[in-house]
């Protein structure tokens, strides 16, 4: 059962082909890692999926529905959650208000407090609920981003470099968190930390120059000559 699929998805910026003809199939419940060298078009691709960026060509299907023409907020309301690559929290609002804003879209007012508490406890920020989000360390802001994703209880969670700036112990916690989450949601994560990719992902998609270079299990990708060449610049 496929939750998300794209056909011929492309995006050009003034002649630069950032994403070209991507056919992606994401089965329900999978943890999929999206990797590739810098500038490969990973963030553009997920931007196309959640509607931040309008495609030049191609279609996006979510849960059997063509969402290519839906604005971002409607896609989010269908059950897609997106966490930003560059931390984008509400810096002047409290940590719990940040998560509450995420939760209110999905839950009735009575349930919001409980959902917020759950999400904050999962990422270990509950004792900082009253602080201003802007006063948190960078790593904690990353965790807050993830908590905002969790609070939406999405069907598809898109994480753009979630472990960037996290300490080693926090990365370990993060892995457990995503495994737990994958029981109820599909996860698409852009990741540079290879230990995270190797341990978490069911499948890996490699993007290079806006095109899918290879797809397979982490072990297959690890052994793939083309992927090694793309990363190391040999051949």
């Amino acid at each position, binding site marked *: 059962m496929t939750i998300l699929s794209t056909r011929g998805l492309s995006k050009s910026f003034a002649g630069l082909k950032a994403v070209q003809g991507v056919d992606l199939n994401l089965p329900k419940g999978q943890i999929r890692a999206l990797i590739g060298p810098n500038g490969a078009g990973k963030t553009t691709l997920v931007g196309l999926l*959640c509607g931040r960026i309008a495609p030049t060509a191609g279609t996006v299907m979510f849960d059997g529905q063509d969402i290519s023409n839906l604005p971002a907020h409607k896609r*989010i309301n269908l059950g897609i959650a997106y966490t*930003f690559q560059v931390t984008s929290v509400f*810096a002047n609002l409290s940590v719990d*208000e940040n998560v509450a*804003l995420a939760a*209110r879209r999905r839950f009735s007012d009575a349930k919001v407090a409980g959902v917020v508490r759950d999400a904050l406890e999962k990422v270990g920020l509950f004792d900082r609920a009253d602080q201003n989000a802007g006063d948190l360390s960078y790593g904690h802001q990353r965790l807050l981003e993830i908590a905002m994703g969790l609070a*939406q209880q999405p069907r598809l969670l898109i994480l753009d470099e979630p472990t960037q700036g996290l300490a080693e112990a926090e990365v370990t916690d993060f892995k457990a968190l995503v495994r737990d989450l994958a029981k109820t949601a599909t996860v698409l994560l852009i990741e540079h930390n290879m230990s995270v990719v190797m341990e978490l992902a069911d499948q890996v998609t490699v993007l290079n120059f806006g095109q899918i270079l290879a797809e397979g299990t982490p072990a297959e990708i690890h052994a793939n000559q083309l992927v090694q060449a793309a990363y190391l610049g040999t051949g």
Partner: protein
Amino acid sequence: MSDLRKTALLHFGILALLFGLQFILPAYHHGNLARIMVLASYAIGFNILFGYTGLLSLGHALFFAAGMYGMGMSVHLFEFSPAPALISGLVVGVIVSAAVGFLALRTAGVAFMIVTLMFAQAGYLTILYFGAFTRGDEGFVIQQSERILWGIDLSDATNRYFAAWVLFSVCLIFTLKLVQAPFGKTLIAIRENEERARMLGYDVFSRKLVAVILSGSMSALAGASYGLLFGYVGASFATVQYSIFPLLWVLLGGAGTVLGPLVGTLFMFYLIDLSSGVTSAYMLIAGVVLVLLTLYAPQGLAGELRARVWRWLP
């Protein structure tokens, strides 16, 4: 005591104080305060858009005047009594703000400021152009006989004060409830980080449009009340000056605070009133004080109070 209780206590306390002041104030200040409460209602409306949603309009005089003329023209041309005239002013305000919001929200930032400013100028020139009906620059007086609402003569100082207090209370309580409700919190989220709010699934455009309509309609209600209470409708209220006033009041009092508009309006009114008693160069004194405030209290008076003492202030 919970923050909600403290908030309720403070705001209702201020309303009670304003109500009580009418019994002890001398006639001059009594009249001033009635005027300040109506103008502060205008500033509260402006603050919904500027302080809470983060959209700076330079054309709010259009909404103030829309209410004032919506009320005044219905009295002037169709001999409406005050209650339907006020409603007519409010309806015109809703329509004008919906139309302006729908068009102006296609822009953002500086462009939004310019577009709203242009709409307001167009509104002002429209009033002058139809001078045959509106009496243009000269304006027209709402006669005492036309200002009797349910048997209450609004030209009487006591009744006028009471009416201004009711208007101000309605605007203040409405805004307080608004910013405590999920909808108001969404507006704050849009102010803080619009793209993030959008990517949490909020329809940012429609919420900003509702904010423009709420803000514009409250400004229109204040404009309609001003015309009715003080008996005069004129094009000077549609000039750019009346778009800048609420911005000044709100900045001084504290943008994004419920009490800021009142504090700012009161402060500015008496600053000019007192300094003009001392010297004919009163604008110089006012200017220096404004510069000092911007330097040492950049968040406005109520804003600084929130930053330093009462963090719970809404």
